[in-house]
C-alpha cells in the first residue's frame, strides 16, 4: 500500500517536472532530438505504468475486438504513450507566434478552409480527441485562420484538485493555447445555455469554430445524445455540430492531425464540407464515420482509449468496462468522466 502511494507520488512528480521543465526544454532543442527524447519518455511510461498499459490494451481489444491481435494492441499502447509525451512538447512549441510548431505542421486541405470562409458563413471544423488537436487549432490560428474552440478546460471543474494545481495547469496547459485563439474557449457546462448562440456569433463573424464530437455528454445533455454507428459499435454522441450547421448554414469540415513516423512532423488533413442535410442521426453519422476512419487508420492517436469511464459513457463498452455491448449510451453520473481524468494529472491524455 505504502509502495503504491510512493510510486504514485513519484509518478506525479515526474509528470509535473516534465510539464514544467522537461517538455519546455525539449521544445527548445532541434525537433528531431526533442521529439526523440519525448518518444523515449513515452517508452519509459509504457514500461512502468503497468495498470494504465493494461487498461489501454483492454479497451482497445474491447472496442476493436477481432480487428486487433494482442500484439497489435500492445504496439498501439506503446505508441499511445509516445504520442502523449510528444503532445506536451507540441504545446511548448507554441511560443513565438507558434513558429517552432508551425514549421513542423503541414496543412492539407487549406483550400477547403479558404473556400468555406469565402462563402462568409464561417466554418465548423469537426474533429475528435485525436492527436495533438489543441496545438493543431493553435497552429491554424497562427497560420491566419481565426479559430475559436468549443471545449472545456476540465481541470477547472474537477473535484479534488487544489487551486495551486489549477493555477499550474492553467499556466502550463491552457495559457499556451489561449494565446492563439480568436476568442476564449466556449465552455459547455450545465446551465450555460448560451454556448450555441456564442458559437453562432463566431460563425457570423466568419470565424472557424472547432468542435470535438466524441466529448462525453454531461448528465444534463444526455437526453440530447444521438446513437450513431461508431467504431463498429453504437455510441451516443451530441448532435451539436449538426444542429449548429443546420441553423447557421455554416459548412462542416472534418479535420485530423496525424503525427508522422519521425514524431516531429505532423499533417492536418482537412476534408471538403460534409453534407449535413437530412435527419440529425444521418448527418451526425457521417461525421462519426469520418472520426471512426481516422481512429482505425491510426488508433494510437485517439486520446479516449485511456479512459474506461468515458468509453462506457459513450456506450462503446459495458458500464463495468467489460465487453458486453452497451444497449445504448450508458447513463452514468456526470462526474465519472471527470473523476476518471482527475485520477491522473496529465490534462491532455494520460
Amino acid at each position, binding site marked *: 500500500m505504502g509502495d503504491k502511494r510512493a510510486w504514485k507520488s513519484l509518478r506525479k512528480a515526474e509528470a509535473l517536472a516534465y510539464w514544467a521543465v522537461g517538455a519546455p526544454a525539449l521544445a527548445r532543442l532541434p525537433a528531431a532530438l526533442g521529439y526523440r527524447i519525448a518518444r523515449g519518455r513515452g517508452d519509459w511510461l509504457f514500461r512502468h505504468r503497468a495498470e494504465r498499459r493494461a487498461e489501454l490494451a483492454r479497451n482497445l481489444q474491447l472496442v476493436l475486438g477481432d480487428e486487433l491481435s494482442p500484439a497489435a494492441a500492445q504496439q498501439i499502447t506503446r505508441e499511445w504513450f509516445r504520442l502523449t509525451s510528444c503532445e506536451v512538447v507540441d504545446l511548448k512549441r507554441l511560443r513565438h507566434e507558434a513558429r517552432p510548431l508551425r514549421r513542423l505542421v503541414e496543412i492539407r486541405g487549406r483550400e477547403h478552409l479558404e473556400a468555406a470562409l469565402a462563402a462568409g458563413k464561417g466554418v465548423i471544423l469537426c474533429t475528435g480527441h485525436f492527436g495533438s488537436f489543441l496545438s493543431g487549432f493553435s497552429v491554424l490560428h497562427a497560420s491566419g485562420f481565426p479559430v475559436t474552440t468549443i471545449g472545456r478546460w476540465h481541470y477547472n471543474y474537477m473535484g479534488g484538485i487544489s487551486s495551486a494545481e489549477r493555477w499550474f495547469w492553467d499556466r502550463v496547459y491552457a495559457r499556451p493555447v489561449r494565446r492563439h485563439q480568436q476568442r476564449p474557449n466556449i465552455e459547455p457546462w450545465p446551465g450555460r*445555455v448560451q454556448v450555441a448562440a456564442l458559437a*453562432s456569433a463566431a460563425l457570423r463573424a466568419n470565424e472557424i469554430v472547432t468542435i470535438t464530437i466524441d466529448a462525453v455528454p454531461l448528465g444534463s445533455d444526455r437526453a440530447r445524445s444521438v446513437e450513431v454507428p461508431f467504431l463498429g459499435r453504437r455510441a451516443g454522441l451530441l448532435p451539436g455540430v449538426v444542429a449548429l450547421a443546420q*441553423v447557421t448554414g455554416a459548412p462542416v469540415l472534418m479535420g485530423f492531425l496525424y503525427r508522422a513516423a519521425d514524431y516531429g512532423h505532423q499533417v492536418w488533413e482537412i476534408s471538403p464540407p460534409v453534407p449535413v442535410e437530412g435527419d440529425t442521426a444521418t448527418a451526425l453519422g457521417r461525421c462519426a464515420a469520418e472520426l471512426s476512419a481516422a481512429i482505425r487508420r491510426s488508433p494510437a492517436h485517439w486520446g479516449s482509449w485511456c479512459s474506461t469511464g468515458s468509453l462506457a459513457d459513450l456506450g462503446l463498452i459495458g458500464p463495468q468496462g467489460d465487453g458486453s455491448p452497451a444497449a445504448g449510451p450508458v447513463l452514468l453520473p456526470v462526474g465519472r468522466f471527470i473523476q476518471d481524468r482527475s485520477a491522473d494529472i496529465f490534462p491532455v491524455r494520460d
Partner: protein
Amino acid sequence: METIINDYISRELVQDPALLPLANETSLLESGILDSLGLLRLVVFLEEQFGITMGDADLLPENFASVNTICAYLRAREPRKQKSTRG
C-alpha cells in the same frame, strides 16, 4: 411582442405538452424549455423578427429567463437600436 414570442416558443421549443399553454412568467431555463440549441433558434428568430443583431454581451441567461424578461430586454434595446440606426 409577448404574444409573438410566446407563440414561437410554444410552437418551436416546448417539447412537453404539459407545459402548454405557456405563461409569460414561466422560467424557460428551469423548466428545460430552453437549452443551448433552443436559445440559438430563439436568437435567430428574434433577430429576424425584430431586425436586431445580438452580440456576445447580449447572450446572458437572465435575458432569456422567461417571455417577460425577453420582452423587457428587447424593449431596453430599442433606444440603442434607434441610436445605431440614426448613427
